[in-house]
Structure formats: C-alpha cells, structure tokens
C-alpha cells in the first residue's frame, strides 16, 4: 500500500501529484471466494478488511450494487458516541469508539475523527431521569458521560438557548467528551484501500439477485448482475436492503426500512463546537470542518426505499433546531438527502449467524450505524471467520426476538441515533 503522509504529499506536489496510485482496484468477480461480503459500505468494507487483516482470509470479495460508501455510510450525520444504556450496547459501541480513536493510524487514512463531544439535552423531569440513568450506567461500564447543568451546557455550546421561558427549556444535559464526528466517506475509502492492499476484491456495480444453497441448505454462492460467484460464506451487510437480500435465502428478519432525512446548511465560520442532540424536541446538529451545520432528525412514518422523504419532516426538524439555536434561524438549508435505515423492534442491531449455514448478517442499525462502523465490522469479521460470535456481539442475535431477550434501547431510553 502506498504510504500516505505529509512527506508523501510534499514529494508528490513536485511531480504534479502524478505518482498517486489508485486507492483500490476495480476488481472483476472471480469464480470463487472464501467469503463474500454483500454491501460495500463502511461496515462491509471494514468486515472484509478485518477478515484479511486479523483472520488471515485473503480470498475475499465485497460486492456492492452501486459505488462503495454510497449508502448510509455517505448519507448520515457522522455522530460517534458510545453512551448507550445497556451493558451489551455500551460494550458494543465503546468497542467501536475505541477503534475510531486510532482508525486513521491503522488504515493510514485520515478519517478525521474529531472527539468534539456529544451533548444530549434534557428538557423535562422525565428526560432528566432517563439521561441520568444513562450517565450512571455508563460510568459502571467505564464509558465516559457526565451530567451538566444548563449553564455548563451553554458553556460547552455557546449558541445553545437555555432561557427558561421557551416552550421546552433545557434542564440539563449529558456530555460524552470522547464522542464526536468523523468524515463519513473516508471511512469507506480508508477501509477499501486497506482491504484492497490485502488482496480483497472490491466489486462495484454488482447487485445480488439470488443466493444459491446446496442440498443441505447451506449457502453455495451468489447470483449477481455480474454472474454467479461461489462462496461457502456470505456475510450480508446491506443496511436498508438487507431484507431484500436475505429473502433470497428464505430468511425473514424483524426489520423495517424507513426513510431518514438529513441536511446541511450553507457553510459559515465556526459557531458550533460540538454535537448537540435533543430527543424530546427531536433534532441534532453539529458543524462540519467545511463549516456546514449538519442536521438530522427522525424518520418518515412509512416504510420506503426511495431515499427521500416529505417536506414536513424537514420542516419539523428545522423548527426544533431554530428553537434550540435561535441564532441559526437566518441560515439556509443547502442540501437535503435521504437514506434508508433498517430498524429492528428493539432498535438494537443484529450481528449474527442466520439459520442458513454459511450465511451471516449484520443489520438493524437503524439511525445509528455510522458510529458503530469499525466495531461492527470487526465483530462481523470475527463471526464469519470463526462461525461463532465474538462475546461482544453474542447477545445481538436474531433469536432474541423469539425469546424475548431484547436489548431495548428505544423502550428503555427513548434515546436513539
């Protein structure tokens, strides 16, 4: 792999940057792989990378129906945090957060992880109870999260409106200082480049159209728009399209796909030093390195694969943002987009073996998958390589829904994203 560094950049400047090599090969499908990952987002590319880097499998492919990083990896608001309530979730997300912290170095690709702090606002007595429960549980799990008064919250985010005469005044906040943001595309590209260097084939414009199974029901290979590809191990990491892919193997999952919109403002000089989220009035905001305010909220109400939603959803998001940050009311929406998020009944993901031998699934990240990218990829690779889950993802099975062993972050916390 061509080394990225300030020195390399300096040297290349004198050669007109003619010496940079392709970050990944444009692979064509081989007849057979030891494992295939379906879905070229951060989770899928990362899983391929860890299969190669940590489990010694090098005959691996990632098949992507469009272009890598074009799904939710490139359509989210890049919030990274790990202050989840339940032990299982905290372990999972903190595993990921720790990996974010040195991901740039591991991949030799600046993913611009910026631990600028994620602040979650409380507006009611109930919010306060729920958020303090998080703070205490996080401490027990060695996950940083601290309670702030409204004044402390404003000190951390000066444009926050903490006046007590507004409709839903801020009564406090929880702050995870290690949380922050990252540049979304770089995660996909960084993993792709590193995986490619280890021999992983990244095959774009290759849509899965079927899953072949042998006489015993085990997976045998994938039908794709670029032909049939054999593999005894298939890991599906297809986010909003997971149901569609798994259906080819007759596997039904407790998943529903919803449109999730996000938007950015025109770029302005820095005004927003951190990430602020409010579940009660439903909006969140940060500012990108480029200066755009990055804003998101909840999903549209109905299942959809259109990658777009209604005007009233954006309007509702922005009325909340203007209420929390009245100085941004004159700012302008520059771009709005939609993703397709796959949600489970308990709003926790599935990283597990399926009932079909050789078929694995990593899905159900809902509105919060980006933050989990490295950890999820790492654990999924482990699960595929060893045909058994890592202890961290062992609770995130499909069977938990049958048995009632839910990890219900939504019900327990009413805090998502």
């Amino acid at each position, binding site marked *: 792999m061509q080394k990225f560094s300030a020195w390399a950049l300096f040297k290349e400047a004198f050669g007109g940057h003619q010496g940079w090599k392709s970050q990944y090969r444009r692979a064509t499908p081989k007849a057979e792989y030891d494992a295939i990952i379906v879905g070229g987002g951060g989770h899928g590319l990362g899983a391929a990378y860890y299969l190669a880097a940590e489990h010694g499998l090098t005959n691996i492919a990632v098949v992507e129906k469009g272009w890598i990083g074009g799904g939710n990896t490139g359509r989210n608001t890049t919030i990274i945090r790990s202050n989840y309530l339940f032990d299982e979730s905290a372990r999972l997300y903190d595993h990921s957060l720790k990996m974010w912290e040195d991901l740039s170095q591991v991949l030799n690709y600046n993913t611009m992880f910026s631990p600028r702090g994620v602040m979650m606002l409380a507006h009611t007595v109930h919010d306060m109870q729920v958020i303090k429960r998080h703070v205490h549980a996080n401490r027990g799990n060695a996950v940083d999260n601290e309670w702030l008064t409204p004044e402390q919250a404003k000190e951390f985010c000066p444009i926050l409106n903490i006046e007590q005469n507004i409709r839903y005044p801020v009564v406090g906040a929880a702050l995870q200082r290690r949380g922050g943001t990252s540049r979304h595309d770089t995660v996909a590209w960084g993993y792709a480049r590193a995986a490619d260097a280890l021999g992983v084939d990244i095959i774009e414009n290759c849509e899965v159209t079927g899953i072949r199974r042998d006489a015993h029901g085990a997976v045998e290979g994938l039908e794709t728009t670029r032909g049939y590809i054999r593999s005894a191990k298939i890991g599906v990491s297809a986010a909003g399209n997971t*149901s569609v892919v798994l259906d080819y193997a007759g596997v039904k*999952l407790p998943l529903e796909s919803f449109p999730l919109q996000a938007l950015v403002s025109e770029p302005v000089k820095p005004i927003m030093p951190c990430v602020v989220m409010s579940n009660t009035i439903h909006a969140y905001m940060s500012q990108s390195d480029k200066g755009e305010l990055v804003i998101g909220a909840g999903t549209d109400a109905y299942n959809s*694969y*259109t990658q777009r939603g209604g*005007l009233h959803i954006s309007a509702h998001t922005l009325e909340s943002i203007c209420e929390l940050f009245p100085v941004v009311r004159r700012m302008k929406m520059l771009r709005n987009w939609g993703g397709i998020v796959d949600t489970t009944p308990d709003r926790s993901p599935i990283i597990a073996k399926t009932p079909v031998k050789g078929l694995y699934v990593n899905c159900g990240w809902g509105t919060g998958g980006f933050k989990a990218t490295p950890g999820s990829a790492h654990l999924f690779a482990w699960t595929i390589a060893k045909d058994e889950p890592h202890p961290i993802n062992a609770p995130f099975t499909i069977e938990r829904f*049958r048995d009632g062993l839910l990890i219900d972050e939504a019900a327990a916390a009413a805090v998502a994203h």
Partner: protein
Amino acid sequence: MLIIDCPYCGPRPEPEFTHGGEAHIARPADPSQATDQQWLEFLYLRKNTRGVFAERWRHARGCGRFFNALRDTTTDQFLATYRAGQKPPAVPVGGER
C-alpha cells in the same frame, strides 16, 4: 407529504394519517397455542417489501378508520387503497423499478 386515498373520505394529506405497518398480519386466533416461532412471526417478522407493499394506515385525524393500501416502496406511489378486512385488489405487477 403524501396524498392518501382514504376509502371513506377520499384523497387526504399525510398528516391526517398514522402508518400501521404491514397489512394482513392476523393475530393468531388462539395465542396460547402459538409456538414461540409463530409468536415471533406475528410480533416482529415483516416482509419489508421493496416494491408493492400491502400496508395499513389509519385516518386518525379524519374518519378514524384503519384501512389497507398497496404502495410501491420504491416510488412511494399508491396503487390502491381498500377497507380493512378486504383482500388486496389485483394490481398491475410493476415490481421493482
């Protein structure tokens, strides 16, 4: 903001409605006889169709009725709406677009 054709009131704007998830999932007649797997299917397993999807809506801020709809989830265009308890009408098979 979708326009949804309520079988009772006619075309109405989306804010009057609540989405009720996949249609035609009947609660087992005798839940005590259902296996854990069957209960899982009733509670949680959903087709999550990419294409023509039978779903429920309630005209909650209108006539209050639950009804069913066929909507293409790849375009968000409705193909039909029909009353609860009715079978989905035959629609031209568009499938994925």
